[in-house]
């Protein structure tokens, strides 16, 4: 092979590598930032790309793998060169050696993250992947500068300002594997579903009963296949929360059991505390939709017909990932379906307490902003409600003094909340609406320091929002949630629990919006049926 041809290939490979590196670094930084791990790079928040970055990052990851193969092939066909031992040559050679290992490790770690779960090795893989990504960026700069200093300017210019003629010069023997690679890359989206782990759902005899109580002490649960999903927590210490999932089908209904460890059950939800000026909401981030302290434990299940990473591609990162739509206040992103609707089951330990229901919700394509609404949630909404549910004990949230909507009929009702131990699994911070009366200053004789729940329960959900029966209980450091739903419902905001449906789970450890997640779903497979 002529040297000119060889160099034209170096130029083409460089163009690909530079584009991919920029794409991977930028999308990767956005992933890290949205997950609260942006390190120093958080200052670039405003300049990083927004939107469905998980999908982009992964598809660039595939492109890298393909590029690596082409690179190896390219090297095999390199013309012999006279080895030079000038300091500059040696430095550049070592640098390039280093780069090989660096990029190889990045790709292997990336693959490990995707196939082993982002939480692999309790977040260490992710941490290493992130620091190698930073190193790759530093390498790019050091290598580029070294080459600019030591290499003939013409060679450097050829890479920085590539000429169109290289496309011809590289020859068809080069373009053939590249085209094959491109096909492979484009096809990766179709290959992924076949690589999805299955959630095997056993059959439950019709005469066996499962009581929805969160105890899961029925014998059927002992024998049902068990799956563990390692979900990754948000935040600098990217620890994992493993969630075990089981399913049982009985005729036209499917039971699920989810459990996850939590040493601190949180059954407190934005309590009110009386101060000398009046009542205040105990909160640290409610007004940014990012309460992380005074919040109840929650759990979510997402169901979709498409397997794309990050909740069927519903996770759009950045403060305003959708042009023409409102921003989100956390700056991290929001959910909106990119194709068909996603069914979301959102269990809330305090607000759903006592009803044996969870909040049946959905992610649809982004809804328009409703004028004056306090929080724009893009495609996320609870399913339509006819009546029932819960409400907050204030008319409008604020950092300052709020007037409670209601006070207990009997002030003694508040006694048990005063001496409460933190994380008491028995004390649920809510009051029945019917045991309270509209606020009056005459009745507000509570001493400064009094704490009062802010969740007011009314009746069970009537309507689509109440389609899933569920109850959880906390025992010895583990939450167990049992849920049951008909395979089909009447609601257009639900998906039928059919063979092949994809499922994700998320744990909210006393968090309003920061939840653990995983990228690759489980795929429902009903055993012993067609």
């Amino acid at each position, binding site marked *: 092979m002529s040297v000119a041809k060889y160099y034209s290939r170096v130029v083409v490979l460089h163009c690909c590598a530079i584009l991919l590196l920029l794409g991977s670094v930028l999308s990767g930084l956005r992933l890290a930032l949205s997950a609260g791990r942006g390190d120093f790079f958080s200052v670039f928040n405003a300049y990083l790309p927004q939107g469905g970055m998980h999908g982009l990052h992964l598809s660039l990851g595939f492109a890298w793998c393909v590029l690596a193969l082409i690179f190896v092939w390219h090297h095999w066909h390199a013309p012999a060169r006279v080895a030079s031992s000038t300091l500059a040559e040696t430095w550049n050679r070592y640098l390039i050696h280093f780069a090989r290992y660096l990029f190889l490790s990045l790709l292997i770690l990336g693959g490990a993250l995707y196939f082993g779960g982002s939480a692999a090795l309790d977040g260490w893989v992710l941490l290493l992947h992130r620091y190698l990504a930073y190193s790759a960026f530093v390498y790019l700069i050091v290598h580029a500068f070294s080459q600019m200093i030591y290499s003939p300017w013409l060679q450097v210019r050829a890479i920085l300002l590539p000429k169109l003629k290289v496309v011809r010069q590289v020859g068809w023997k080069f373009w053939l594997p590249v085209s094959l690679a491109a096909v492979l890359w484009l096809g990766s989206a179709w290959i992924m579903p076949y690589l999805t782990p299955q959630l095997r759902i056993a059959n439950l005899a019709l005469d066996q009963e499962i009581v929805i109580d969160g105890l899961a002490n029925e014998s059927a649960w002992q024998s049902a296949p068990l799956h563990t999903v390692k979900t990754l927590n948000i935040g600098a210490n990217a620890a994992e929360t493993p969630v075990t999932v089981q399913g049982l089908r009985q005729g036209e209904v499917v039971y699920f059991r989810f459990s996850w460890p939590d040493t601190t059950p949180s059954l407190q939800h934005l309590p009110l505390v009386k101060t000398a000026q009046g009542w205040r909401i105990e909160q640290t981030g409610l007004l940014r939709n990012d309460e992380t302290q005074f919040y109840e434990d929650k759990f979510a299940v997402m169901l979709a017909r498409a397997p794309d990473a990050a909740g069927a591609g519903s996770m759009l990162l950045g403060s305003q990932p959708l042009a023409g739509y409102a921003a989100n206040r956390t700056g991290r992103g929001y959910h909106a379906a990119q194709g068909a609707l996603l069914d979301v089951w959102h269990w809330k330990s305090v607000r759903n307490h006592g009803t044996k229901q969870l909040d049946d919700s959905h992610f649809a394509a982004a809804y328009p902003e409703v004028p*004056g609404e306090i929080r724009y949630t893009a495609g996320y909404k609870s399913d339509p409600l006819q009546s029932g549910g819960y409400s907050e004990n204030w*008319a409008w949230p604020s950092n300052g003094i709020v007037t409670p909507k209601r006070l207990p009929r009997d002030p003694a009702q508040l006694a048990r909340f005063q001496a409460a131990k933190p994380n008491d699994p028995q004390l649920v911070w809510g009051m029945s609406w019917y045991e309270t009366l509209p606020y009056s200053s005459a009745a507000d004789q509570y001493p400064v320091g009094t704490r009062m729940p802010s969740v007011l329960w009314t009746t069970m959900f009537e309507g689509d929002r109440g389609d899933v029966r569920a109850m959880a209980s906390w025992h010895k450091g583990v939450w167990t949630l049992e849920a049951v739903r008909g395979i089909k419902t009447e609601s257009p905001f639900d998906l039928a629990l059919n063979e092949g449906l994809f499922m994700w789970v998320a744990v909210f450890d006393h968090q309003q919006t920061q939840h653990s997640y995983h990228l690759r779903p489980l795929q429902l497979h009903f055993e012993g049926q067609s």
Partner: protein
Amino acid sequence: MKHLIFCLALLSGMQANASDRWQKTDAQGRALPVSAGPWSCIRDLNTGLLWENKSDNEGLHFNAATYSWFDATHRLGVEKAGSCSDASMKVSPCDTRDLMVLANQQAWCGVSNWRVPSAKELTSLLLDTGFVGNPRIASGFFPHTGRFPYWTADVRPSNNGKTEALILHFGSGSTQWLGTQHAARLRLVASP
């Protein structure tokens, strides 16, 4: 240059979104910023009309209170066939006149000309939010609106010699004639 001015005008027109139309006011009728709350009334800056805000708390402005349709001046409609509570939370049978009289007595939001809105006025509140679970209204400004029928002032004699008034349903967005003896919800309006 002309094109540029046109584009700028178009852009600024586009930015005038629906929230520029509504202004929250407190119980004395003083304007509040969009981000503030709670609020007692909502002013339509396009028409000058002032609308009663509803609350999910029992009391005079309780969202789920119902009223039969009754016009005392012309002695039309049916008295006391709904169910609402007054400011002292006493629940009693009531009609549209009761809410009007009480709101005027209170000078709610600083005005005493509260009345039942015409169908045209009430229909001007309709907004398709794109989600059937939401009432068809700018619910950020008009919280606790039900996907239920609300009375309008439009009235006509019915076939059986009684009267019926037009209701507007905030779930479907459609209007329909309903016998005045029926119970429906009510949101009052005041002209500027």
